[in-house]
Every structure is written in C-alpha cells, then in structure tokens.
C-alpha cells in the first residue's frame, strides 16, 4: 500500500474553527465538541487541530512538532536540529492512551531558535531559514516528519476520528485564542499520521474541505518557487500558496483571497477603474495560484483567521458570531452545539473571505 505522498488521495471532510476577536484565550474543549457533532463527515482516517496562542511562555520560539517512526531517525534528526537551532526546550507531546487511537509514532516537541551563526551564513531571513530546515527534515529524513513549525501555535493530528484525536492530545489542557479542527474522509486508507490535517508551515495552518481541480497546475507552479509537495494533498499546496503570497510576496489576506478565489472576469469588468486594475493585476500576476474546484478553508495565521470558499461555493460553510466570538464550520449544527444563542449567522458567498484579525479588534 502506498502512503500519502506516493499517491494522491482525494478526500471529503468537516472543518470547524473559532476565534476570540480580542485575543482572549479559551480551552480546547469546545472545538472538540464542535467537530464531534459532524462525525458523519469523517471516516476515522484522519483528524486534527491547530491551536493559536497556546505557548505564551515560549512565544518567541518556533515550536516544532515532529513525528518519528524510530528512535534511530529521532537521533539523526535531533543532530540536525542541534546543528541549526538553539533548542530551548524539548519533550514528548503529552498524550492520553485511548483505545480509538493506535499505532502512534514517537511525537516530540521542540522550542527552538535558529543559531545566529548558521542564520547569518545562510543569508536568509529567519522565517525562510526555519521553513528551509522543515523542508530538509521532511524530504531527507525518512521516518521523521515536522508537522508544526510556528511560534506560539501548534498542530495536533492523528489517524482517527477528530474527537478521539482531541482527547488523545489532551487538547482541553491547552488555552488559545483560536482553534481550527478537521475531520477527514479520505477515499482510501493510507493510515499515516503525517497525512492527517491541518497542514502547517511556520505559523500558517490550513484546514480544508474539498478536492481542488487545479491541483497539478498549482503544485507545478509553487514547486518552481522552491516548495516541495511531499504529500500530494490539496491542503499542502494551499498552505504553500498562502505562505508564498503572504510571506514572500507581501499580499494581504484580502488580496490573497482575490488571487486564490479570484472574482470572475465578468465581475472584474463591472468594478470601479481603480479596483478593477488591482484585480486584473492580481489575476494576471498570480494566474497559477488561482484555485478551482470545491473548497472551504480556514487559514490560521499569526494574529488571525481567514475563512474562504471557492468562487462557486461548492462546499458548505457558515459563520456565526456571538459577542467577541466568531465561529465557522461546515455545518451550522457544529456552531449551534457550542453557542446556541448566536447574534448572527450567515453563509459567506463564494470567493468572499471572512478575515478576523485580533490585533485589529477583529476587523480584516
């Protein structure tokens, strides 16, 4: 049986997310309840969470979460990490033994900062240096896989139903200002933990429901800019596109949405001249980053969350608000369960991003 990365595996999914606009932290309990109610949208072959604001005591350090298949590869990988980073703290990620989650790899967490000499020698900026090291581990060390590499955030994922994955990782013990969750319905049985979602690079994490039809166009384009799509999943390529557009090209999330779920030309033609010129520019300049086919995504980033549907809205996604809280999920039930008395609830139009920025009182 080929594992994720050796073969492309389409999958359906459930997604859920919640964020406090003021940056107030909450426990991971609610997100587990929310994703659990959409149990039917997963098939037990992958679940996971991204949590932001969970490591305030180490907020200036990159938190590397790594799966190891053997202690031998762990040693090799740690040698590599020590040559490139100052490791401030390392430990097993705390887990709870439950019968629903089996065959777990070794799961370790490292809080690191690049060694100043190495960083200077590389002539890269700090985040590019870290991203390059992550790619290096994931492509060169067979049996080691970095699945989370941001600051003050972490991804927790496994093969299983998402609610079981949440209990396995003791997610209720963490407190963060934003959580996203994913339940996966892949169309065969890879049984590999690295293939579960969210997918993350640096502080960007993506949970995604859909199967994009532009995949290979997007993959071949992004690989030209130095990314390596090792998993062959939509979520991986979407994450790299967002990293490329935001970190490397300096686009805002509103602009990113106008690239990946671009307005139709017929819509652009009706815009005011100034706005029209920007949209035409973005479509031409980043034509290979347009994503077609069904998707609903939640993009977590340092300081906020973006929810976005494909431009035809071929996947369900609703947004609810209550006070400072914003909830987003594939199904309304996943929101109502944890907040029955919402101030508002709506289904965003295809291609219209919902962006919550906690440094800006929740506005995009």
């Amino acid at each position, binding site marked *: 049986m080929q594992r994720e990365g050796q073969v492309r595996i*389409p999958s*359906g999914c459930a997604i859920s997310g919640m964020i406090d606009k003021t940056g107030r932290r909450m426990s991971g309990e609610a997100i587990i309840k929310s994703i659990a109610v959409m149990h039917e949208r997963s098939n037990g072959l992958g679940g996971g969470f991204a949590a932001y604001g969970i490591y305030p005591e180490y907020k200036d350090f990159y938190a590397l979460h790594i799966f190891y298949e053997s202690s031998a590869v762990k040693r090799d990988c740690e040698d590599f990490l020590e040559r490139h980073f100052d490791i401030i703290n390392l430990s097993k990620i705390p887990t709870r033994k439950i019968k629903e989650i089996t065959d777990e790899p070794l799961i370790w967490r490292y809080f690191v900062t690049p060694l100043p000499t190495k960083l200077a020698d590389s002539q890269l900026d700090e985040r590019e240096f870290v991203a390059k090291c992550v790619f290096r581990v994931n492509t060169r060390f067979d049996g080691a896989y970095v699945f989370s590499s941001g600051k003050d955030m972490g991804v927790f994922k496994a093969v299983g139903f998402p609610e079981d994955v949440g209990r396995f990782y003791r997610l209720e013990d963490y407190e963060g200002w934003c959580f996203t969750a994913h339940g996966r319905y892949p169309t065969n049985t890879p049984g590999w933990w690295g293939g579960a979602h969210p997918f993350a690079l640096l502080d960007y994490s993506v949970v995604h429901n859909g199967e994009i*039809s532009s995949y*290979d166009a997007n993959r071949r*384009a992004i690989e*030209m800019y130095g990314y390596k799509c090792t998993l062959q999943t939509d979520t991986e390529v979407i994450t790299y596109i967002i990293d490329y557009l935001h970190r490397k090209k300096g686009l805002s999330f509103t602009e990113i949405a106008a690239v990946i779920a671009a307005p139709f030309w017929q819509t652009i033609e009706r815009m005011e001249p100034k706005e029209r010129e920007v949209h035409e520019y973005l479509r031409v300049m980043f034509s*290979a980053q*347009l994503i077609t086919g069904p998707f609903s995504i939640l993009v977590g980033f340092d300081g906020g969350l973006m929810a976005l549907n494909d431009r035809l809205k071929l996947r369900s996604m609703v947004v609810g608000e209550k006070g400072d809280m914003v909830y987003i999920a594939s199904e309304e039930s996943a929101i109502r369960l944890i907040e029955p008395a919402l101030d508002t609830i709506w289904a965003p139009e295809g291609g219209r991003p919902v962006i919550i920025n906690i440094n800006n009182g929740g506005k995009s």
Partner: protein
Amino acid sequence: MALNYLYPEYEVVRNYERCIACRVCERQCANKAHEFLPDLNKIVCDDAKCVNCHRCVSLCPTRAIKITASNNTYKNNANWSGKTIDEIYRQAGSGGVLLSSMGNPENYPVYFDKILLNASQVTNPSIDPLREPMETKISLGAKPHGIERDEQGRIVNNLPPRISISMPVMFSAMSYGSISYNAHESLARAAEELGILYNTGEGGLHEDFYKFGANTIVQVASGRFGVHPEYLNSGAAIEIKMGQGAKPGIGGHLPGTKIIGDVSRARMIPEGSDAISPAPHHDIYSIEDLRQLVYSLKEATGYKKPIIVKIAAVHNVTAIASGIARSGADIIAIDGFRGGTGAAPTRIRDHVGIPVELALAGVDKRLRDEGIRDNVSVIVSGSIRSSVDVVKAIALGADCVYIASSALIAMGCHLCRSCHAGKCNWGIATQVPELVKRLNPDMGYKRLVNLLTAWRHEIKELMGGMGINSIESLKGNRLMLRGVGLNEKELEILGIKHAGE
C-alpha cells in the same frame, strides 16, 4: 507527351448518368483537369492534372464527380513503396528538389491522440458551462519578479506589455503572398470579432489591414520583407521568426509568380522577384545576437509591444527555449514538425524536427526546473486540429496555441498540398485574381468565427467536466492527462501517467 513513368495518384471518376455536361468542373479547375468535347457533348478528365482539391467535387450540381485513389500498383515491395519509386522518377526527370506544401503527412506518432482527459466523479463536482461562468480569457507575456506598492500601500501595475485574448487560440503566421488578400482579410476580421490575434507572417502588411492593428501580430523574419517602423508599431505584438516547424533550418520561399501588385508593395521588393528568406537571420548567429534584435525591436516600438520569438521544435529545443527566456523575449512560440507551409522541400518537411507535444512538455519542464517559466508565455503550434488538442496542449503546459491549417480548412482548403503551385482553386493560396475572388471574405471570416466559437464551447465543456472553471487552472495541469499505449520514456518526457495509474 514525354515519357515520365508516372501514373496518376488519383482518378477522377465521373458518373455519366449524372453528368449534365454543364462544364462547371471545367471552369473551376485551374489545373485544367477537365475538358469539354463539343462533338461528343461530353466532359473528359486528365487524371494526371488532378491535385485532388475537391473543387469540382464540391461544386458539381449533380454530384457526378468523385476522386478515388488510383489502384494502379507497382510490384509489391515493403522497402520500395510506390511513392518512393515515383519520387525517384520525378527527380531523375527534373534534377530538382522535391517540393511540398502543408504539414507533414507521414505516419509518425500523434501524441495528442495517445493522451486522454480526466473528468470529475463523486469526490468533486463537474461544472456545467451552460449554468456557471467558464473562463477562457488569457493574458500572454512576461511577469515582473515582485510586487511594487505606492506610499499608500496600493499595488502599482508593473506588468510589462502583454496580450489579452478571449481564448487560448490565435491564427498563426501566414504571409500575404503565400495566401490571398481575401484569406488575410478573413483572418483579420475573424480575429477582431473573436477577440484574438492573427499573424501577418513575413510578407509585410497590406495597407488595408492596418486598421486591424489591435488584433495583429506583425512578423519579422530573416528576409525582413515589409519591415519598417510604421509596420512594427501597427500591431499588438511583434514576432521574430527564427524557424518554422515545416522547414526547420531554412527560410521562407515565395516564388516570383506570387510577387505581384500589392504583394510586391507590402514586401517592399520588385514584382516578379523570388522572395527567398535567408536560412538564418544574418544578424543572429547566436543567442546574444537574438537578445540584441529583441531589444532593437523594443527600442523601435517604445517598449510597448511584447516580443514573440518563434522557433521550430528541434532536438535541443529545451535548451534553446531556456536561452530565449533569458533574452528579453516575452513569449516563445514553438512550432512542431507537423506544422504547415506554403512551400517546403519535401525531405525537410517530412524528416526534420520533432513532435510539438514532446517539445512542449520538455520546454515547460525545463523552464520550471530553472525557475524562469514566469519570464515568458509559451505558444505552441504544429497541427492543432481540434478543441481537444488545445485542451491537451494547455494541460501539458502551453499558455496558448496557434492554428493555421485548421483555419485554412475552415475557409475551404481541402489539404491537397499543392500551395506551392500557386493555383489554389479555393482562392486561398494563390494570387491569381480570378481564383482569389472565389474566397468571399464575408463567408471566410464567418466560417473562422464559427469554427473558434464551436471550439470555445467544446473547451468549456471539457473544462467543466474536469471541474475547472478557468483556463488558468488547466495550464500545466498534467494530472488531468493520461497516456494510452505510450512507453515509459514517452510518459516520462510528457510528464504524465499511464491510463489506469
């Protein structure tokens, strides 16, 4: 008649029960294959003069005529085919180079026909182009390396000049001279109505057609025929023709018999003189010289026009394309070995160059591997026969395709491959006034518009089936392709999987 050993390849079969001796066939045949015998009130045919262009077949009011392959045969021989023997007789008789027209007719693999397309089932939905927007608009040209913003943080439009067209198909270079005024007018008007571009070819531009400038690519070839500042500035883009798929390694040839009147004026050469373009550009003996010509043309046009460099698909096409992508060119056009022509030495047409599918796959991969795919757009040509060839070319990595033979066929060409004789009965590849007027540009242009309108519908259907609603998401999307009956090396070069994988 002198003995020439040749038996006609085709027979004109006349059904005398249907023939009413109206003499339409006689009048329509510029090759004089039909002759009316008044004493017998009967029309007879000389098969040896027939080029199998179907003009008489199409116009016969009683459908009394058909053309069949002659079944006269030499003694069977797997090595010495009848065609090979005839060619030796012909050369032994004339002492000349064998000449041919249109594309390579030999039995080489057509890779487009060994590639199948994908469609959505269950895990994602197909999209209905009758009910949802389906985008075929594209933009061609170079892209800048970075975003620029003004003091307010607004994005500044720093895109170099580009071409924006309604669908990824344009009319390829066919010079005024090789084809008729009416054929050029049909192409120009069709391009304007369709929102695409046509290409002047290397024969300059007739003064009547300057008004189609926004839909025109002006070509600069090694002969520099008809090139002057007004010409260069009249089009939407400029194409440097380094090579042509039908005849890699040699320049264009137009016999003096076609250089008459307007053609002579557009080319800026005397009437009746042969227009023989040099094999190379004599100011381009290497890649650094090409760069100088690219920038000379940009200087001459104020950096307002994208520059296309057209090359024939030859063995080291990937390295050549890589060089061109670093030469300041905005667009590379790659013409495969099946591309058509008004006249080419047969041996070159049939044996030089490589299939465009392989050239395209190699070039697209090479430019991506080198990180310079954004420097240029890629147009491919060399026998794009249908909408599905367009879709497959885009999925392999092309930005756009050129068509020429398909366009000529739409206007009535029956692929008799006799353009070099200058007696095109369909009024396309001729300058004989009474033949030219047989092509009515009102109808010619309409048939071109119809053809590409139909193709656009089909492209949308095929894209919708794949769940793709923008042509940009098809570009280079090789997962949408599978090979059938291809070996591992062919699949590796094309960068696609085999059906069933």
